[in-house]
């Protein structure tokens, strides 16, 4: 059996769950294994019912008051019990922040290793993961017996390939001890002053800019183009630009007509925030930078030469 562990927050699905579920269906077919899905929480009847309308062999609804708000202890205990009982061949998770929080703990509890952030599953099974922030790939083979626990990177499978159907639901109430983690309700920092999601044009700057003193270079480019200025995480971590200009998994998700990435390497956590742009332009001195993997137009070279030249040409064109 392939077991897909879905993720929900306050009754809303994490959309990567659907990609993972689609992956489960495809692998189930390829491996000739039945496919089941599990959802955890409190009052999750409607979510389970929605899952039951997919082509699955079984839906497990794990209900418990202590699972109302995610906590690592509760999730680990509940899933360890389920996996122990089902003995699946493969357990698939979306590689979300929540899975990062409990997945490794669960695997260790089961005497296994979580193969994390996997981008592709090949026969064997052999799992492909990225190394060095996407600069290299690695083929990794589990050497322990099943179950293999695997978390899938965003985009590894497409949610639009999901097959509809019907599946029986089994509701389980696990025996849980009190969790050591006491989570409080999630919140958002004071409302964002900058809404990048509405921007048509974005110039985004990364660590290639080297110093805060060099930022006017990209500010000028953004101004000439009439674009919003955005940044990768390290620029905001350093305090060079405010957090609200950060694009990526922990920042904003944008979809402009043009996203111009200047000195950004293209780590997956950045890519998930901007790969929905209509056109992506990348300026980077490293021809092998992963950003070119998603770029429509690539300019290989020194940003300190290209950016001023580009600003000038745009000004000329607009004059």
């Amino acid at each position, binding site marked *: 059996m392939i077991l897909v562990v879905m993720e929900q927050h306050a009754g809303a699905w994490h959309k990567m769950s659907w990609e993972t579920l689609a992956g489960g269906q495809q692998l189930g077919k390829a491996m000739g294994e039945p496919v089941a899905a599990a959802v955890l929480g409190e009052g999750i009847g409607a979510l389970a019912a929605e899952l039951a309308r997919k082509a699955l062999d079984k839906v497990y609804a794990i209900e418990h008051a202590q699972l109302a708000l995610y906590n690592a202890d509760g999730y680990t205990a509940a899933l360890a019990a389920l996996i122990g009982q089902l003995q699946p061949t493969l357990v698939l998770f979306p590689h979300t922040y929540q899975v990062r929080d409990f997945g490794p703990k669960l695997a260790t509890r089961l005497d296994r290793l979580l193969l994390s952030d996997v981008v592709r599953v090949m026969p064997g099974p052999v799992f492909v993961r990225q190394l060095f922030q996407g600069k290299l790939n*690695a*083929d990794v083979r589990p050497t322990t017996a099943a179950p293999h626990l695997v978390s899938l990177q965003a985009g590894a499978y497409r949610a639009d390939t999901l097959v509809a159907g019907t599946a029986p639901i089994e509701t389980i109430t696990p025996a849980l001890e009190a969790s050591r983690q006491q989570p409080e309700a999630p919140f958002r920092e004071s409302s964002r002053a900058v809404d990048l999601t509405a921007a048509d044009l974005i110039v985004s700057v990364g660590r290639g800019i080297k110093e805060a003193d060099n930022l006017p270079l990209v500010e000028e480019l953004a101004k000439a183009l009439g674009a919003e200025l955005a940044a990768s995480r390290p620029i905001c971590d350093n305090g060079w630009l405010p957090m609200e200009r950060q694009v990526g998994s922990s920042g*904003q998700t944008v979809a402009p007509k043009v996203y111009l990435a200047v000195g950004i390497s293209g780590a997956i956590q950045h890519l998930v925030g901007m790969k929905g742009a209509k056109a992506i332009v990348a300026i980077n001195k490293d021809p092998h930078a992963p950003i070119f993997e998603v770029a429509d137009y690539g300019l290989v070279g020194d940003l300190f030469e290209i950016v001023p030249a580009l600003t000038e040409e745009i000004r000329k064109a607009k004059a």
Partner: protein
Amino acid sequence: MKIIVAIKQVPARDSQLRLNSAAKWIDEEDLTFEINEPDAYALEEALQLKEKQGAGEVIALCLGPERAGSTLREALAKGADRAIHIVCAHPETLDPLAIANLLAGAIRTESPDLVLTGLQSDDLGSGQTGVIVAELLGSSHATNIMEVLLQADAIRVKRELEDGWFQYIQMPLPAVLTIQSGLNRLRYATLMGIKKAKTKEMRIIEAETLGGQAASLDRIYPPDRQKQTQMLTGTAKEQAVQLVEKLRFEMRVL
């Protein structure tokens, strides 16, 4: 309060990576190495927690080949009180569970109140060593931490969630936290600190070879390009002129 910070030494960020002849890892000759980015923030947080309390001990812990000693020295120069170096010539042959087992072994002998790790390593990028260590130690843990507040017998931490969301969590000590970049401002080592570091204790432990591994790294290779990227060529000016053309006639935004 006794705090252990797990820091990893990784190839410097802009390194040109070449595969070794077996295509099992990168060729490390000619590379320079540095502290893994979030680990630098974890170390800073540990130092600040100690300073806030006015007492305690910060121990830097690293598993790596001999070269990794330089990263531990830097941690001592920045203010860590002592260091533990688990020497292992080829850590790249270990999977995260094996690494965590070795780290947990060293941590156990110290019984710290708090263990800080980075969220993710730049090279392996498993994003799980800290959480595995927590489970092996039987400690509570939390990941992706942007703020650490000490309370009498517990801690309250701010977790970064996706998409600009955050959450506070409280838990008892001892605990393991995985630290996200950007939660503090990094300090530089002072000259005085560098001098003092030479007198601080650096304990060397030989990594015992562990029984089994849970996964094997079969081969590494450059990813294949799926996207057709139009590469603009020529001088900076020529590239700029071409891009303006594209912005005007293909992307239609000028």
